[in-house]
């Protein structure tokens, strides 16, 4: 037994779960446990109470309606990876999930857990940033909807308060035929990314970009949207020249150096991966360059 002792709770409803969160001191939500349990095993953190939400009704599933895809926070990464709805309506997420851990961890890991854990190199929060996802959070005090750009507040820290529970992640859909790509660099498959780039593009019949979204992971405390790159693409024809210029704007990011890579190397990767993701996205929406 590695973790320090804790009490275990297995609520069946969202109300029970938020009730426990409101009344218990030093409690944490246990979803898939693929990040939390290693931290408990290492005793990086110790909790007095674990609230397992695996059996809470209505917390898992994928629904597409009214131009939005709503995903329950407890939905396992495996389910998202193999979901035809996700592949059809939010293919960027499908592509990003192939970089998330391994089959054995995706079988249990959840999207809500990844968002709450908020590793700066994680893929799912980066997709949420690129898609302008909205996170729905509840507590005994009520519920609130948080735009993803307000979700992360610092290194592995989110807006979610100790008495709150993430229930749904809502992805506004891009039109059919949009271009998308997720590219990352990692030492070994399944490792956390040293850096990564997600791109979404919508191109008109005249080949000019109507809308673009570029998000990076691994280069800051939270996923980063590169508004400068997006501004540079919109209204222009998607070509190698515009994509290269847009990718160059990522040089403004200020990554940290650590044992895995220097800040300069991460900045270099951000530019290269952004260019590659734009090129792949362009090819997928019929505007190859």
């Amino acid at each position, binding site marked *: 037994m590695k*973790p320090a002792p*804790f009490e275990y709770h297995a609520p069946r409803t969202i109300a029970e779960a938020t009730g426990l969160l409101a009344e218990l001191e030093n409690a944490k939500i246990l979803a898939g446990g693929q990040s939390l349990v290693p931290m408990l095993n290492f005793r990086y953190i110790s909790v007095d109470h674990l609230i*397992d939400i695996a059996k809470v009704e209505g917390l898992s599933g994928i629904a597409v309606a009214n131009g939005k895809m709503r995903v329950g926070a407890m939905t396992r990464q495996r389910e998202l990876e193999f979901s035809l709805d996700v592949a059809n309506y939010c293919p960027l997420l499908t592509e990003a999930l192939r970089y998330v851990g*391994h*089959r*054995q*961890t995706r079988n249990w890991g959840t999207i809500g857990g990844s968002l709450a854990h908020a590793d700066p190199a994680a893929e799912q929060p980066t997709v949420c940033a690129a898609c302008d996802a909205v996170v729905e959070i509840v507590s005994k005090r009520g519920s609130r909807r948080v735009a993803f750009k307000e979700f992360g507040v610092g290194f592995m820290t989110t807006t979610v308060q100790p008495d709150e529970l993430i229930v749904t992640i809502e992805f506004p859909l891009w039109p059919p035929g949009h271009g998308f790509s997720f590219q990352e660099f990692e030492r070994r498959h399944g490792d956390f990314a040293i850096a990564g780039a997600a791109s979404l593009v919508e191109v008109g019949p005249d080949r000019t970009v109507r809308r673009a979204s570029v998000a990076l992971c691994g280069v800051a405390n939270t996923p980063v949207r590169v508004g400068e790159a997006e501004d540079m693409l919109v209204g222009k024809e998607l070509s190698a020249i515009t994509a290269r210029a847009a990718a160059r704007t990522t040089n403004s990011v200020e990554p940290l150096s650590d044992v895995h890579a220097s800040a300069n190397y991460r900045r270099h990767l951000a530019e290269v991966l952004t260019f590659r993701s734009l090129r792949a996205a362009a090819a997928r929406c019929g505007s190859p360059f």
Partner: protein
Amino acid sequence: MKREVSITVNGREYRREVEPRLTLADFLRHDLDLTGTHVGCEHGVCGACTVLVNGRSARSCLLFAVQAEGNEIATVEGLSVDGDLNALQCAFRDNHGLQCGFCTSGILMTLTELLRDNPDPTEEQVREVLTGNLCRCTGYAGIVASALDAAHHLRKESGY
């Protein structure tokens, strides 16, 4: 406070009182004496402790026994058929798929899931799922060959 759990392992139901912090890996090894499941890193990196939970591969060091309440677990002890090695295990013996054997039980469970879901995997697909299991002696070539050989035999057996 201890909780009673009922967990089915390789078709047999076990009831035990466990502390919530007991991992499924330690439950299998210490409470049930099923020591075929090996414990390597205990933080979800090495894959040695891989078992199937309700048919899905899982790192048993990252699940607590209390989470597996009512679930069906398959471990390496359940693979043999009437005391004989099954097709996957035979393929490992025939293709030098193991050396020290520490990682083997986890790899066998990972591949059991793969071959059930995909009877005709490509080498790339085999290598992709194996990224979740570390082997420090054979260098994977024998393991990949074993998996593809087992898939071939199983397809022949089932007339696929």
